[in-house]
Protein backbone atom coordinates (compact mmCIF):
# COMPACT_ATOMS: atom_id res chain seq x y z
CA UNK A 1 0.00 0.00 0.00
CA UNK A 2 2.72 2.38 1.02
CA UNK A 3 4.63 1.54 -2.11
CA UNK A 4 1.56 2.25 -4.26
CA UNK A 5 1.19 5.79 -2.89
CA UNK A 6 4.87 6.38 -3.15
CA UNK A 7 4.86 5.41 -6.80
CA UNK A 8 1.74 7.40 -7.54
CA UNK A 9 3.35 10.52 -6.16
CA UNK A 10 6.42 10.16 -8.33
CA UNK A 11 6.12 12.50 -11.34
CA UNK A 12 7.44 10.15 -14.06
CA UNK A 13 5.19 7.35 -12.93
CA UNK A 14 2.16 9.59 -12.69
CA UNK A 15 2.94 11.20 -16.04
CA UNK A 16 2.90 7.83 -17.76
CA UNK A 17 -0.15 6.56 -15.86
CA UNK A 18 -2.13 9.74 -16.58
CA UNK A 19 -1.25 9.48 -20.27
CA UNK A 20 -2.64 5.98 -20.37
CA UNK A 21 -5.80 6.61 -18.32
CA UNK A 22 -6.89 9.97 -19.72
CA UNK A 23 -8.17 8.72 -23.11
CA UNK A 24 -10.21 5.97 -21.45
CA UNK A 25 -11.97 8.42 -19.18
CA UNK A 26 -12.38 10.69 -22.17
CA UNK A 27 -14.16 8.12 -24.32
CA UNK A 28 -16.43 6.95 -21.52
CA UNK A 29 -17.28 10.60 -20.83
CA UNK A 30 -18.00 11.31 -24.50
CA UNK A 31 -20.39 8.33 -24.79
CA UNK A 32 -22.16 9.17 -21.52
CA UNK A 33 -22.49 12.90 -22.19
CA UNK A 34 -23.73 12.51 -25.76
CA UNK A 35 -26.13 9.71 -24.76
CA UNK A 36 -27.49 11.54 -21.72
CA UNK A 37 -27.73 14.78 -23.68
CA UNK A 38 -29.84 13.04 -26.28
CA UNK A 39 -31.97 11.39 -23.59
CA UNK A 40 -32.41 14.66 -21.71
CA UNK A 41 -33.47 16.52 -24.84
CA UNK A 42 -35.68 13.95 -26.55
CA UNK A 43 -36.31 10.89 -24.38
CA UNK A 44 -37.21 12.36 -20.99
CA UNK A 45 -40.80 13.63 -20.72
CA UNK A 46 -41.42 17.38 -20.33
CA UNK A 47 -42.12 18.60 -16.80
CA UNK A 48 -45.75 19.14 -15.76
CA UNK A 49 -45.09 22.79 -14.88
CA UNK A 50 -41.94 23.84 -16.67
CA UNK A 51 -42.53 22.08 -19.97
CA UNK A 52 -39.37 21.71 -22.04
CA UNK A 53 -37.47 24.40 -20.13
CA UNK A 54 -36.83 21.81 -17.43
CA UNK A 55 -34.41 20.02 -19.82
CA UNK A 56 -31.85 22.65 -18.91
CA UNK A 57 -31.35 20.87 -15.57
CA UNK A 58 -29.45 18.10 -17.41
CA UNK A 59 -26.59 20.50 -18.01
CA UNK A 60 -27.19 22.82 -15.06
CA UNK A 61 -27.31 20.35 -12.16
CA UNK A 62 -24.25 18.24 -13.16
CA UNK A 63 -22.27 21.47 -13.66
CA UNK A 64 -23.30 22.73 -10.24
CA UNK A 65 -22.44 19.41 -8.56
CA UNK A 66 -19.08 19.34 -10.31
CA UNK A 67 -18.31 22.92 -9.32
CA UNK A 68 -18.44 21.78 -5.67
CA UNK A 69 -16.82 18.39 -6.22
CA UNK A 70 -13.85 19.91 -8.07
CA UNK A 71 -13.35 22.39 -5.25
CA UNK A 72 -13.24 19.59 -2.69
CA UNK A 73 -10.71 17.71 -4.85
CA UNK A 74 -8.64 20.89 -5.19
CA UNK A 75 -8.68 21.65 -1.46
CA UNK A 76 -7.86 18.03 -0.59
CA UNK A 77 -4.94 18.00 -3.01
CA UNK A 78 -3.77 21.33 -1.58
CA UNK A 79 -3.92 19.96 1.98
CA UNK A 80 -1.98 16.84 0.98
CA UNK A 81 0.59 19.05 -0.74
CA UNK A 82 0.94 21.23 2.35
CA UNK A 83 1.14 18.46 4.92
CA UNK A 84 3.20 15.85 3.11
CA UNK A 85 5.11 18.29 0.88
CA UNK A 86 4.18 16.41 -2.26
CA UNK A 87 4.74 18.53 -5.35
CA UNK A 88 2.50 16.37 -7.48
CA UNK A 89 -0.44 17.13 -5.18
CA UNK A 90 0.12 20.85 -5.74
CA UNK A 91 0.22 20.21 -9.50
CA UNK A 92 -3.16 18.46 -9.21
CA UNK A 93 -4.64 21.33 -7.18
CA UNK A 94 -3.37 23.89 -9.67
CA UNK A 95 -4.87 21.91 -12.55
CA UNK A 96 -8.26 21.69 -10.83
CA UNK A 97 -8.83 25.44 -10.64
CA UNK A 98 -9.59 26.31 -14.28
CA UNK A 99 -11.84 23.25 -14.61
CA UNK A 100 -13.73 24.08 -11.44
CA UNK A 101 -14.10 27.66 -12.58
CA UNK A 102 -15.56 26.57 -15.90
CA UNK A 103 -18.07 24.25 -14.19
CA UNK A 104 -19.06 27.09 -11.86
CA UNK A 105 -19.46 29.43 -14.81
CA UNK A 106 -21.66 26.84 -16.56
CA UNK A 107 -23.80 26.34 -13.46
CA UNK A 108 -24.35 30.10 -13.17
CA UNK A 109 -24.94 30.69 -16.87
CA UNK A 110 -27.30 27.77 -17.49
CA UNK A 111 -29.13 28.55 -14.26
CA UNK A 112 -29.58 32.09 -15.47
CA UNK A 113 -30.91 30.88 -18.83
CA UNK A 114 -33.39 28.70 -16.92
CA UNK A 115 -34.25 31.44 -14.45
CA UNK A 116 -35.30 34.02 -17.04
CA UNK A 117 -38.39 32.19 -18.33
CA UNK A 118 -39.18 30.27 -15.09
CA UNK A 119 -38.53 32.67 -12.23
CA UNK A 120 -38.87 35.78 -14.34
CA UNK A 121 -35.34 37.07 -13.77
CA UNK A 122 -31.82 36.38 -15.01
CA UNK A 123 -30.31 36.98 -11.61
CA UNK A 124 -31.36 37.43 -7.99
CA UNK A 125 -29.12 37.99 -5.00
CA UNK A 126 -30.44 35.02 -3.08
CA UNK A 127 -28.26 32.86 -0.85
CA UNK A 128 -27.68 30.04 -3.37
CA UNK A 129 -26.86 32.23 -6.33
CA UNK A 130 -24.64 34.55 -4.30
CA UNK A 131 -22.64 31.76 -2.65
CA UNK A 132 -22.13 30.07 -6.04
CA UNK A 133 -20.85 33.37 -7.43
CA UNK A 134 -18.42 33.57 -4.50
CA UNK A 135 -17.19 30.10 -5.53
CA UNK A 136 -16.39 31.48 -8.98
CA UNK A 137 -14.45 34.33 -7.34
CA UNK A 138 -12.58 31.82 -5.17
CA UNK A 139 -11.45 29.89 -8.24
CA UNK A 140 -10.51 33.14 -9.98
CA UNK A 141 -8.66 34.39 -6.90
CA UNK A 142 -6.80 31.09 -6.64
CA UNK A 143 -5.66 31.33 -10.26
CA UNK A 144 -4.77 35.02 -9.94
CA UNK A 145 -2.72 34.33 -6.81
CA UNK A 146 -0.81 31.55 -8.54
CA UNK A 147 -0.23 33.76 -11.56
CA UNK A 148 1.15 36.59 -9.45
CA UNK A 149 3.89 34.52 -7.75
CA UNK A 150 6.79 33.46 -9.95
CA UNK A 151 8.40 31.00 -7.58
CA UNK A 152 6.49 27.72 -7.97
CA UNK A 153 7.05 26.46 -4.43
CA UNK A 154 5.81 29.71 -2.91
CA UNK A 155 2.86 29.88 -5.29
CA UNK A 156 1.98 26.31 -4.28
CA UNK A 157 1.95 27.11 -0.57
CA UNK A 158 0.13 30.45 -0.79
CA UNK A 159 -2.57 29.17 -3.15
CA UNK A 160 -3.02 26.00 -1.07
CA UNK A 161 -3.86 28.11 1.99
CA UNK A 162 -6.39 30.08 -0.06
CA UNK A 163 -7.94 26.82 -1.34
CA UNK A 164 -8.25 25.55 2.24
CA UNK A 165 -9.81 28.76 3.53
CA UNK A 166 -12.34 28.76 0.69
CA UNK A 167 -13.55 25.24 1.40
CA UNK A 168 -15.86 26.71 4.05
CA UNK A 169 -18.00 27.99 1.18
CA UNK A 170 -18.83 24.46 -0.03
CA UNK A 171 -21.23 23.50 2.79
CA UNK A 172 -22.65 27.03 2.70
CA UNK A 173 -23.59 26.59 -0.97
CA UNK A 174 -25.12 23.19 -0.33
CA UNK A 175 -27.19 24.23 2.68
CA UNK A 176 -28.00 27.76 1.50
CA UNK A 177 -31.41 26.70 0.21
CA UNK A 178 -32.23 25.00 3.53
CA UNK A 179 -30.87 27.57 5.99
CA UNK A 180 -32.35 30.64 4.33
CA UNK A 181 -35.51 31.35 2.46
CA UNK A 182 -34.25 31.54 -1.08
CA UNK A 183 -35.62 31.80 -4.57
CA UNK A 184 -33.71 28.71 -5.59
CA UNK A 185 -35.55 25.48 -4.83
CA UNK A 186 -34.36 22.94 -2.28
CA UNK A 187 -32.41 19.80 -3.14
CA UNK A 188 -34.28 17.12 -5.09
CA UNK A 189 -31.96 14.17 -5.49
CA UNK A 190 -29.93 14.35 -2.28
CA UNK A 191 -32.71 14.93 0.20
CA UNK A 192 -33.09 12.16 2.73
CA UNK A 193 -36.50 10.85 1.74
CA UNK A 194 -37.11 9.50 -1.74
CA UNK A 195 -36.07 11.87 -4.53
CA UNK A 196 -39.10 13.76 -5.79
CA UNK A 197 -38.33 13.34 -9.45
CA UNK A 198 -39.78 10.82 -11.89
CA UNK A 199 -37.42 7.94 -12.69
CA UNK A 200 -37.48 8.66 -16.43
CA UNK A 201 -36.28 12.17 -15.63
CA UNK A 202 -33.73 11.08 -13.03
CA UNK A 203 -31.85 8.50 -15.11
CA UNK A 204 -30.41 10.91 -17.72
CA UNK A 205 -29.46 13.28 -14.89
CA UNK A 206 -27.44 10.61 -13.10
CA UNK A 207 -25.75 9.29 -16.25
CA UNK A 208 -24.94 12.86 -17.30
CA UNK A 209 -23.40 13.52 -13.88
CA UNK A 210 -21.31 10.38 -14.17
CA UNK A 211 -20.26 11.51 -17.63
CA UNK A 212 -19.19 14.90 -16.24
CA UNK A 213 -17.19 13.07 -13.56
CA UNK A 214 -15.32 11.02 -16.19
CA UNK A 215 -14.83 14.15 -18.30
CA UNK A 216 -13.29 15.90 -15.31
CA UNK A 217 -10.96 12.95 -14.69
CA UNK A 218 -9.86 12.90 -18.33
CA UNK A 219 -9.19 16.63 -18.64
CA UNK A 220 -7.64 16.89 -15.17
CA UNK A 221 -5.15 14.11 -15.97
CA UNK A 222 -4.28 15.80 -19.27
CA UNK A 223 -3.76 19.14 -17.50
CA UNK A 224 -1.65 17.60 -14.76
CA UNK A 225 0.61 16.09 -17.44
CA UNK A 226 1.28 19.52 -18.90
CA UNK A 227 1.80 20.96 -15.42
CA UNK A 228 4.22 18.17 -14.42
CA UNK A 229 6.20 18.47 -17.62
CA UNK A 230 6.67 22.17 -17.02
CA UNK A 231 7.61 21.78 -13.35
CA UNK A 232 10.03 18.94 -14.00
CA UNK A 233 11.64 20.40 -17.07
CA UNK A 234 15.11 20.05 -15.55
CA UNK A 235 14.66 16.50 -14.31
CA UNK A 236 16.47 13.68 -16.01
CA UNK A 237 13.34 11.53 -16.61
CA UNK A 238 11.74 14.31 -18.62
CA UNK A 239 14.69 14.40 -21.00
CA UNK A 240 14.61 10.67 -21.40
CA UNK A 241 10.88 10.34 -21.68
CA UNK A 242 10.17 13.18 -24.05
CA UNK A 243 12.34 11.57 -26.68
CA UNK A 244 13.63 15.02 -27.50
CA UNK A 245 17.16 14.69 -26.21
Amino acid at each position, binding site marked *: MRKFWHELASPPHFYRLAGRLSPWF*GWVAAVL*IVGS*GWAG*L*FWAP*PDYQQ*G*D*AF*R*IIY*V*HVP*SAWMSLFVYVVMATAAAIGLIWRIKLAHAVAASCA*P*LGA*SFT*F*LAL*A*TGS*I*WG*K*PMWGTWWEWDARLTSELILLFLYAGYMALRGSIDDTARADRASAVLALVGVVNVPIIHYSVIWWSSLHQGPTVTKLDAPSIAVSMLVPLLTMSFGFMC*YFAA*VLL*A*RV*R*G*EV*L*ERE*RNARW*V*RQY*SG*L*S
Partner: protein
Amino acid sequence: MGATIFWFIMMLGDILSMGDYTAYVWSAYGLTLLVLVGNILLARRRHSAARLDLGRRLQAREGER
Protein backbone atom coordinates in the same frame (compact mmCIF):
# COMPACT_ATOMS: atom_id res chain seq x y z
CA MET B 1 -36.08 18.04 -54.96
CA GLY B 2 -36.82 21.47 -53.50
CA ALA B 3 -39.91 20.08 -51.84
CA THR B 4 -37.89 17.29 -50.23
CA ILE B 5 -35.39 19.74 -48.76
CA PHE B 6 -38.23 21.93 -47.52
CA TRP B 7 -39.92 18.92 -45.95
CA PHE B 8 -36.65 17.84 -44.37
CA ILE B 9 -36.05 21.24 -42.80
CA MET B 10 -39.62 21.29 -41.50
CA MET B 11 -39.11 17.87 -39.91
CA LEU B 12 -35.83 18.96 -38.36
CA GLY B 13 -37.43 22.08 -36.94
CA ASP B 14 -40.17 19.92 -35.48
CA ILE B 15 -37.73 17.56 -33.82
CA LEU B 16 -35.51 20.28 -32.41
CA SER B 17 -38.40 22.42 -31.18
CA MET B 18 -38.63 22.80 -27.40
CA GLY B 19 -42.01 24.50 -27.30
CA ASP B 20 -41.77 28.05 -26.02
CA TYR B 21 -38.27 27.45 -24.73
CA THR B 22 -36.33 26.37 -27.85
CA ALA B 23 -33.86 29.27 -27.64
CA TYR B 24 -33.29 28.85 -23.89
CA VAL B 25 -32.77 25.08 -23.97
CA TRP B 26 -30.49 25.02 -27.00
CA SER B 27 -28.40 27.97 -25.86
CA ALA B 28 -27.83 26.26 -22.48
CA TYR B 29 -26.79 23.00 -24.16
CA GLY B 30 -24.69 24.83 -26.75
CA LEU B 31 -22.86 26.84 -24.13
CA THR B 32 -22.12 23.70 -22.14
CA LEU B 33 -20.72 21.93 -25.20
CA LEU B 34 -18.59 24.96 -26.03
CA VAL B 35 -17.06 25.13 -22.54
CA LEU B 36 -16.46 21.36 -22.34
CA VAL B 37 -14.69 21.27 -25.72
CA GLY B 38 -12.78 24.45 -24.87
CA ASN B 39 -11.39 22.86 -21.71
CA ILE B 40 -10.07 19.90 -23.70
CA LEU B 41 -8.37 22.16 -26.24
CA LEU B 42 -6.81 24.28 -23.48
CA ALA B 43 -5.46 21.20 -21.68
CA ARG B 44 -3.96 19.91 -24.91
CA ARG B 45 -2.39 23.24 -25.71
CA ARG B 46 -0.88 23.40 -22.24
CA HIS B 47 0.73 20.01 -22.70
CA SER B 48 2.08 20.70 -26.16
CA ALA B 49 3.37 24.11 -25.06
CA ALA B 50 5.29 22.46 -22.22
CA ARG B 51 6.74 19.94 -24.67
CA LEU B 52 7.71 22.62 -27.13
CA ASP B 53 9.41 24.66 -24.43
CA LEU B 54 11.24 21.56 -23.28
CA GLY B 55 12.47 20.85 -26.78
CA ARG B 56 13.83 24.38 -27.13
CA ARG B 57 15.63 24.16 -23.79
CA LEU B 58 17.23 20.86 -24.65
CA GLN B 59 18.34 22.15 -28.02
CA ALA B 60 19.87 25.22 -26.41
CA ARG B 61 21.72 22.97 -24.00
CA GLU B 62 23.04 20.84 -26.87
CA GLY B 63 24.25 23.99 -28.53
CA GLU B 64 26.26 25.00 -25.46
CA ARG B 65 28.16 21.78 -25.47
